[in-house]
């Protein structure tokens, strides 16, 4: 930069360092100025006396003032006095203001051993996992109590809120759920037919489609979709209510937030999931049938009669039985995470992510537990 020269020029004479400052000592030149000041402050170690002529400075702001203060402070620390001349009265008051700051050394953050940090993170993770389970159990209990209380006084149930939530969680979710499950059914049928064809057992692809969709895939896909779609929105809603102290306001008015906000939402999920699972399973079977007809050359009559032989009502019941429990898990996780939101926008984002990840994880774990349960009772 051409203006570097004029910002600060040094003259060394008989052990006396004379500095002439000029130009704009402002934020815009702070980078260049800092390196000049650092160079000069090294030079000054050899000088007996130092003087700075600030007469040429056109503009002066806190950045300039601080750098000048830093320069003089380092000389004072080395036992040398610096005289500043040619400075307007107005700039002097700014310099005086700066002489009062940064007197305490900045707190030094202790750097830890990497291994210790990793171990600590692991430990905190384990404790966090345990604490999560406790939080969810706590939320489940609170919802249970609220539900029991509402049962004794049914008029207290927020019916309007529940209908509104049902519209958002169930009715508005129907198109996307139908589309996704239709595609999944079609893909499973295509893969089944493609691979079973090698053994001449294309007919069994229908068994695969029917059993897989009714027992497992239908409910799992729907639960994962709902966790991503409605669980996240529950967490974000309750979280921003926490941030704006709306939940506290409810509490001080004598309402139980669990009863007013959370119970309707969770109940709606428990009702909505079986509905969506049913619709989703039908769409998937339809998609499978369509592929069997167009790709596998199996007429719809054959597909349906084969389906009748392959699946029993038990498969359908197993799938539908799991749905309300998955709804409960998603609701409990989403609401519990929502209430954990602190004041910052970042925390809202973190908690919403955690809500989706944890509810999908728990939904799959629950599905595994159900699989063990049904296997052991032989259905």
């Amino acid at each position, binding site marked *: 930069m051409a203006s570097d020269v004029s910002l600060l020029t040094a003259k060394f004479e008989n052990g006396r360092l004379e500095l002439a400052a000029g130009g704009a000592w402002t*934020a815009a030149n*702070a*980078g260049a100025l800092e390196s000049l000041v650092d160079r000069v402050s090294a030079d000054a170690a050899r000088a007996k006396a130092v003087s700075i002529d600030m007469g040429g400075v056109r503009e002066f702001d*806190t*950045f300039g003032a*601080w750098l000048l203060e830093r320069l003089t402070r380092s000389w004072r620390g080395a036992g040398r006095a610096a005289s500043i001349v040619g400075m307007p009265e107005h700039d002097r008051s700014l310099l005086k203001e700066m002489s009062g*700051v*940064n007197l305490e050394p900045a707190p030094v953050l202790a750097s830890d051993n990497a291994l210790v940090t990793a171990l600590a993170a692991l430990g905190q993770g384990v404790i966090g996992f345990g604490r999560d389970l406790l939080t969810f159990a706590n939320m489940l209990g609170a919802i249970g109590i609220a539900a029991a209380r509402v049962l004794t006084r049914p008029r207290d149930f927020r019916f309007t809120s529940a209908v509104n939530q049902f519209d958002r969680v169930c009715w508005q979710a129907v198109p996307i759920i139908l589309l996704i499950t239709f595609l999944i059914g079609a893909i499973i049928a295509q893969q089944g037919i493609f691979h079973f064809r090698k053994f001449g057992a294309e007919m069994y692809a229908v068994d695969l489609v029917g059993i897989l969709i009714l027992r497992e895939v239908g409910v799992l896909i729907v639960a994962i979709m709902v966790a991503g779609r409605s669980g996240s929105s529950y967490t974000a809603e309750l979280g921003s209510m926490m941030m704006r102290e709306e939940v506290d306001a409810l509490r001080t008015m004598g309402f139980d937030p669990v009863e007013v906000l959370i119970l309707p939402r969770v109940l709606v999920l428990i009702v909505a999931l079986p509905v969506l699972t049913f619709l989703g399973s039908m769409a998937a079977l339809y998609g499978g049938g369509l592929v069997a007809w167009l790709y596998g050359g199996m007429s719809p009559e054959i597909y349906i009669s084969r389906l009748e032989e392959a699946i029993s009502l038990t498969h359908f019941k197993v799938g539908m039985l799991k749905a309300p429990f998955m709804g409960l898990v998603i609701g409990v996780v989403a609401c519990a995470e929502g209430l954990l939101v602190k004041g910052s926008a*970042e925390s809202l984002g973190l908690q919403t992510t955690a809500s989706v990840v944890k509810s999908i994880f728990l939904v799959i774990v629950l599905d595994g537990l159900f699989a063990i349960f049904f296997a052991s009772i032989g259905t």
Partner: protein
Amino acid sequence: MSDKPVISVKDLVVGFGDQIVLDRLSLEVRAGEILGVVGASGGGKSVLLRTIIGLLPKRHGTIEVLGVDQDKASEEQRRALERRWGVLFQQGALFSSLTVRQNVQFPMRENLDISQRLLDEMALAKLEMVGLTPLDADKFPAELSGGMTKRAALARALALDPEIVFLDEPTSGLDPIAAGDFDALIKTLQGTLGLTVFMVTHDLESLYTVCDRIAALADGRIVTVGSMETMLECTHPWVQTYFQGKRGGMLASRIGQLVT
């Protein structure tokens, strides 16, 4: 300082839908003064401020800040201009995922090419200038009290040594002592840094103690501009109610006693 106004607003019209909030409003802010804008709640004070800093679109009129006409300025000029002013929002608007220190460093880091050491020193210097301690620097905005939030937000507004500072209700939500301290702080900083301050406020105390001039906004335009005496002499019904009403009158008589 030149006589040319730093901010000059002419015939400004701003509205939302059918509603006209500012109707042919004209206002000038002189260099180095503290101008207080008063007006009824919902009367368009904050709208005026937000229009001047370019957050709201205007329907008609010209806005000139530091000699740059907002309409004629290129994108580059506008960005350069935005670096020459600082804004203190009503709720502070600190970035909640950054610490106070990082909040203050944010504009410096983006606009200046300086070392981390100077960044740290300048951030602490700004924080100390507004009355915060180095201990507060590593706190997150959610951990600050109302007064501290305002101070931290002011430090961020001052980060790049702006020429103009816009303050949107700087003392709202503060207790009288904290509000008084904040007023004194603004006055001191205006003195040392040579700032021009554009302040929207409801606080009569602030108007009496720190403002050089007051602009009263009513019916979508500036009905009167001037010193406190001008306000008290103004015949506009809203201005009369505001300054000679119960609370305004009490202050005015107290000031009158002090003067006599």
